[in-house]
Structures are given as C-alpha cells and as structure tokens.
C-alpha cells in the first residue's frame, strides 16, 4: 500500500495499477524541476512567476500607447482594467480615495484569474492557488494594506476604535461587541480570504483528478461493460466539472478582489 502510494506521488503516468488509488493531497506535491540550493523550484512557483511576467508584458503592451480611441489590444486591456477600477475599486472604496488602491486590486484580480485558469489549460493544468502558500501570501498583503490604509486615515488607535466600536453602541454591550468585532474584522478576514481561494482551487482540481483518473481506471483496468460505461460517464463528468470550474475560477478571482476592496473601503471610510 505504501509503495503504491509513493510511486503515485512521483509520476502521474504510473498511477495505472491493479488497485485504484483515489487522488489525494499527495498528488498536489509535484516533483521539483530544479533545486537551487535548499529551495525546490516546483511547477506552481514557476507558473506564478511566468504568469506575472506575461501579464505585465501584455498589459504594458495594451497600455503603452494610451490613445483616446483605443486599438484592439488597448480595448481588451481597458476592459479588464475598467472592471477592476470602476466596478470593484471605485464602487467599494468611493470615488475620492480609490485610485491609490487600483494597482493592488488590479494585480490581485489578474494574477488570481490567470493562475486559476492555468488549472484548465492543457499540459499546464495546475491551479497555482491550490497550494496554500500563494493564497496566504496574497491574503497577508491584502491584510497589511487594509489595516495600514485604515491606520493612515484614522491613526493607530483611531483605526481600532473605528473598526471595533460600532457607533451608537454604549454600556456593557461594548464588552461583548468589541472582541467580536476585533475577531471578525482583524483576525478572521485574512484567514477566510486565503482559505476560500485555496479550498475552491484545491477541491476543484481534486474533483477533476478524481473523474479523470477514475474514468481512466474504469475503462482501461477494470474492463467489464458496466465499468466501461461508468468510465465514459466519469469522463463526461470531467467535462461538465471543467465548465463549472471556468465559472468558479473567475468568481474566486472576483470575490478575492472585491472583498479586499470592501475591507479597504470600510477601513478608510469616514464613519461606520
């Protein structure tokens, strides 16, 4: 049992064996491409960096000319930029204060979106954010930014008062409210932010792997007519889940960015 599992970790092709191994967390631990010093360079790390470079080049090319009447490339770039700038940043933060946060929100949205969709691109086919570390990194940045922005506007103590003490609440109720508000606004938010993104990507990829490997096993290993039919159905499910994932991947990028914008908007707002 242990030998089968360890062999399935290393090479996906060797998964085909007499006994079906359901895909698990181990399948997310891909072998490193190279080891630089003590650091293993893995597929998600490489893809995260390549995605960033490609995105930066694409949007630089789109924005470079900055013409009043945009060309096709600029129009495509502005479509994404306008979505983040107007629908997410401006509507959540307010038209006076949103501009400084646009670069961060734009980066969040584009990076998460493309790194999610990598999970459906053949051969790449691995969503970067199914590795918790990347989601944690983005959530920490978002957390530092919205708390920092709030402190810049209200002062350190003023910010905690602004965030934890709702206006109109007095007396002993405050003893209950303040810890609750602190917990929900300061502690829980970054955790839910990264968990939501990570769990959706992880579960989606796991589901796709299950239907792919399951279908493969049913058709090629357990060759009875019922099993083959079930295998075909399993492949069918794979395609349907893929379509669902298209939606989920966009939604997760959108939600992460929108929530970050809303947290920033709440932190820099004048009053509750």
């Amino acid at each position, binding site marked *: 049992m242990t030998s089968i599992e360890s062999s399935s970790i290393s090479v996906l092709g060797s998964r085909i064996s007499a006994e079906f191994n359901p895909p*698990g*967390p181990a399948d*997310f631990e891909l072998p490193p491409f190279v080891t630089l010093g003590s650091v293993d360079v893995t597929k998600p790390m490489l893809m995260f*960096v390549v995605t*960033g470079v490609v995105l930066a080049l694409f*949007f630089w090319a789109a924005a470079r000319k*900055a013409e009043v009447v945009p060309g096709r490339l600029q129009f495509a770039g502005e479509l994404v*930029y306008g979505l983040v700038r107007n629908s997410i940043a401006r509507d959540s933060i307010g038209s006076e204060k949103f501009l400084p946060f646009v670069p961060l929100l734009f980066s969040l949205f584009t990076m998460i979106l493309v790194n999610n969709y990598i999970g459906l691109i053949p051969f790449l086919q691995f969503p970067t954010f199914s590795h918790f570390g990347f989601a944690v*990194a*983005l959530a920490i940045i978002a957390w530092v930014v919205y708390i920092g922005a709030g402190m810049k506007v209200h002062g350190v103590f003023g910010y905690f008062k602004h965030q934890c003490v709702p206006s109109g609440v007095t007396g002993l109720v405050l003893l209950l409210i303040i810890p609750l508000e602190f917990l929900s606004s300061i502690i829980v938010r970054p955790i839910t932010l990264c968990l939501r993104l990570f769990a959706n990507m992880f579960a989606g990829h796991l589901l796709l792997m299950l239907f792919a490997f399951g279908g493969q096993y049913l058709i090629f290993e357990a060759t009875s007519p019922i099993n083959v039919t079930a295998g075909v159905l399993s492949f069918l499910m794979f395609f349907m889940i893929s379509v669902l994932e298209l939606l989920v991947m966009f939604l997760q990028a959108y939600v992460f960015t929108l929530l970050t914008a809303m947290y920033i908007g709440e932190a820099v707002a004048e009053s509750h």
Partner: protein
Amino acid sequence: MFQAILATASDAHGPNPLIPHTVEIILGGVFFLVFVAVVAIFIVPMFEKAYAERVAAIEGGMEDAEAAQKEAQEALAQYKAQLAEARHEAAGIREEAREQGAAIVAEMREQAQAEADRIVAAAHAQITAEHQQALAQLKTEVGGMATELAGRIVGESLADSDAQRRAVDRFLTELEGSAN
C-alpha cells in the same frame, strides 16, 4: 497543539495541504509585490492617462456643441427681433400713410369747400351789384317814363325843368318811403 493536529492529519493521509510552504509564501509575496509595483509604475498611469484624455475629449466635444447651440439660438433670437422690428416699422409707415392720406383728403375737401364758398360769395356779390345797377337804372328810367307819361297826361310839357325835377324827386321819395 494546532501544529500537532495538523501533523497527525499529515501522517494519516499524505501531506496536509493546509500547511503552507514557507518558500511559496515568500516567493508569492515578494513576486506579487514586484508585480504590483510594475503595474503601479508602467500600466495604471497609462490607462489613467487614456481615461483622462478621453474624458477631456468628450467634455470638450460637448462644450463645443453647447457653444454652437447657444450661438444658433442667439442668431435666431436676433433674426426674430429684427423681423419684429421690421414689422413694427412697416405698421408705422402704413399708419402714417393712412394718416397722411386722410389729411390730404380733408385738406382737399376743405379747399373745395372754400372754393365753393368763394364762388357762391362771388355770385352773391355779382347778383347784388347787378341788382343795384338794375335798380339805379330802373330809377332813372322810371323817372323819365313817369315824367313823359305825366306830360302826356297833362297835355303839355312841363317846361319848367326845375319844378319838374322837384316833383319827380318828391314822388320818388314818397315811393321809396312807401316801399320801405
């Protein structure tokens, strides 16, 4: 304790996906911040520039259109004012002409009346003069005729012309007195 739970979970079912790799957090965070910086320096300012220019272009176009419309309205108002003025002037001229015409007619009528009056007066004067003349002539003729008639009746000529004249004068005076 949390770590311990996670560690147990890892042992049971392969690596625990909820334990993030430190390398990934550092690489993800640092690279993401670099990406944000690139976006903030090279991409957002250009998009914002395009936005601002577009807003300016649209607002400029709208202002031009507004100005043109305003100009057109001013011209229309001016034409209307001129038209009204011209109409007013025409009405004034017409009124004046009518007044003048009426005055001319009145004057002509007055002149005609005066002429008529003058003609009538002249006719009256002529008639009076002719009447006086006829009367005077009649007076002398009546005297002569009466004298001759009286002479014939008396049968002799009244030689004494002085007496004759006196008698005639007396007669005439009486006649005049009775006539009056």
